[in-house]
């Protein structure tokens, strides 16, 4: 898009939408409430320990699994991306599957019951599985940007380990940095998994502060240490993104054959690909128990499904509208300031931002929005917009710059060149749209705070049933959610192939 100062209005709107709920709440804050003591340091350390370990393990697994896929028979098949199917699965789905999995095995093996389902280990397991598809996705995209002949040329002179270290790993390092940075950010700002497994983190503590005081401004100010810490993974993420290359021509299959320990490790990482899909599905099928329960659950959840899908769709549309221009501007600029400012609000838990939005809206004529699903959609859109910026930005950097430049040279009207730009990043827009859709579908806190009276999202229904102790219905709801997500993913893939790939045939 051509550099016009008028376009600066779009990032301004984006930043306003992002920061208004935080700054506009206008609650009075006593300075004494802002104290930061040793307990807080400990909580921050807990958050970072969990986030860093999850990020490092998930990224390493993602790298080796991608290596296995890109050197095997799936390297050039469309279904090589099948293993990211569970990327949009809500955090608690993995957490619940872990709980039910242990419970199931404790029947034949009662000794298992002594292993408590709480604490750091359980959180780590769930987070690694939760974030693993994300790392796999970025590693796969990274590996597709390496020319097969580069690898083959190196393998003429050096042995496999050196080729993987010097060519593959170095070429996809920016993608791995980005994956690590993103996972650290997502992990530190999540409270659902730590709360489920009773592991104290800083973000969890922020909720207790909000529960005690109801003060949005105070909680936002208390996120400052998290925001400062987030600058490090943000710099990995944005720094990595700036070095993303464009797709190089060549074969999709890497010209190397894995052997020795590398084959074993890659095979194990690939096994995790299978496990992270099979364990939740199997445990939910077993725990649901009967077709009757499943049918009952399905008929009782239709309305909630409709609400979740509607809000997700609206949030994705809203998010795309506000994220598009800032994303393109960040991608085209080498200045990291806009990128950093655009991403910082991800450190604030969604539900707290939603409380702020509710306060701002209730003070204005916009309060009527609260009577429909629109306010929930706006709240989710605001929370998810930075991630959409990220995806669009990555794709924009991934697109050959000359293709957009030549459109701007040859076009006779601004609109024509702009449409060509949109067309060139259409796959990125579609991915960002779907990410927003699924993240909204999985959202619980914002839905709880902003949902119109009389309506309920599926995530909130699962949360309520979980507290009633109706585990067979919870499992059935999770299974239905997984099914809905799979159907929507496959439909999107079909539409994508129809629009993007089919056009070439």
């Amino acid at each position, binding site marked *: 898009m051509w550099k016009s100062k008028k376009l600066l209005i779009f990032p301004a709107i984006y930043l306003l939408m992002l920061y208004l709920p935080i700054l506009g709440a206008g609650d009075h804050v006593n300075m004494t409430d802002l104290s930061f003591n040793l307990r807080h340091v400990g909580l921050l350390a807990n958050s970072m320990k969990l986030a860093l370990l999850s990020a490092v393990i998930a990224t390493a697994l993602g790298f080796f699994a991608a290596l296995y896929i890109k050197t095997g028979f799936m390297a050039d098949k469309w279904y090589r991306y099948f293993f990211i199917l569970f990327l949009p699965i809500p955090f608690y789905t993995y957490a619940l599957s872990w709980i039910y999995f242990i419970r199931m095995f404790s029947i034949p093996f009662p000794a298992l019951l002594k292993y408590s389902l709480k604490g750091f280990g359980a959180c780590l397991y769930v987070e690694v599985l939760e974030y693993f598809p994300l790392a796999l996705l970025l590693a796969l995209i990274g590996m597709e940007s390496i020319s097969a002949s580069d690898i083959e040329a190196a393998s003429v002179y050096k042995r496999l380990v050196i080729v993987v270290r010097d060519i593959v790993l170095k070429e996809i390092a920016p993608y791995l940095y980005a994956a690590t940075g993103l996972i650290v950010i997502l992990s530190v700002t999540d409270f659902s998994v730590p709360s489920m497994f009773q592991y104290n983190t800083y973000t969890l503590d922020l909720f207790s502060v909000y529960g005690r005081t109801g003060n949005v401004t105070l909680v936002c100010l208390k996120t400052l240490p998290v925001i400062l810490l987030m600058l490090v993974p943000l710099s990995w993420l944005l720094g990595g993104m700036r070095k993303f290359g464009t797709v190089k021509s060549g074969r999709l299959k890497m010209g190397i054959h894995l052997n020795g320990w590398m084959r074993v490790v890659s095979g194990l990482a690939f096994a995790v690909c299978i496990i992270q899909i099979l364990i939740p599905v199997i445990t939910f099928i077993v725990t649901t128990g009967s077709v009757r329960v499943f049918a009952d659950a399905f008929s009782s959840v239709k309305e909630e499904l409709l609400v979740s899908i509607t809000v997700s769709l609206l949030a994705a549309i809203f998010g795309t509208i506000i994220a598009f221009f800032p994303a393109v501007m960040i991608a085209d600029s080498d200045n990291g300031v806009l990128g950093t400012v655009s991403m910082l609000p991800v450190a604030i838990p969604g539900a707290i931002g939603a409380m702020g939005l509710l306060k701002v809206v209730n003070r204005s004529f916009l309060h009527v929005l609260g009577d429909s699903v629109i306010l929930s959609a706006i709240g989710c859109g605001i929370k998810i917009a930075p991630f959409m910026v990220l995806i669009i930005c990555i794709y924009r950097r991934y697109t050959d710059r*000359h*293709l957009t430049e030549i459109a701007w040279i040859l076009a*006779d009207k601004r609109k024509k060149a702009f449409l*060509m730009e949109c067309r060139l990043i259409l796959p990125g827009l579609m991915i960002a749209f779907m990410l927003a859709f699924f993240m909204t579908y999985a959202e619980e806190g914002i839905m709880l705070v902003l949902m119109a009276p009389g309506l309920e999202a599926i995530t909130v229904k699962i949360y309520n049933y979980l507290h009633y102790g109706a585990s067979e219905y919870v499992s059935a709801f999770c299974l239905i959610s997984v099914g809905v997500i799979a159907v929507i993913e496959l439909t999107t893939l079909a539409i994508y192939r129809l629009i993007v790939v089919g056009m070439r045939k």
Partner: protein
Amino acid sequence: MLKVDKISKAFCGREIFNDVSFTVDMGTRIGLFGPSGCGKTTILRIIAGLEKADGGEIIIDDVVMKDTMAPYERNASMVFQDPTLWNHMKVKDNIAYGMSVNDREYVNDLALRLGIEDILDKFPEQISGGQAKRVALARALAADKKYILLDEPLSNIDEETKVKILDFLKNEKLTGKGLIYVSHSEAELKALGCDILRL
């Protein structure tokens, strides 16, 4: 008339070129010649509006080009060193992109003269590198622009295709158009009858 007036450019404090001036009239050909890294491509990018000059001006048809003017407002088309075709569009749609009215007859005629008439209904992924170069050239010529900027259009192609493109460019009348041709090869510029500017 396109006038390049005392433009200069530096990258990371290192001066690439300084006070470069030349003019291109309708129907004339200017050849920019020089070693790698002397700024030939950068000059074309500055004329096209893709980069800013550190000093000097670009004047097209008596209008000074401001930095804020978008490339499509500059009345110049361009061929990059790589063909840069849009893969989602057929060859004929790539060629017609810069035309305000899609004149199929003109596209067919241009394709015939460049020897790419058989691939008009194909997608860029289905054609060879030499054919892609000719498509990029056809796209620049078909565009409703007065000035054509060619950045080493004969690099990385086989001899046969080189000869075909050179013959085409030699015989092309360029009525109402001006051409700036960047090349490493002085012989190529002489063969095209360009006024050569050494950088």
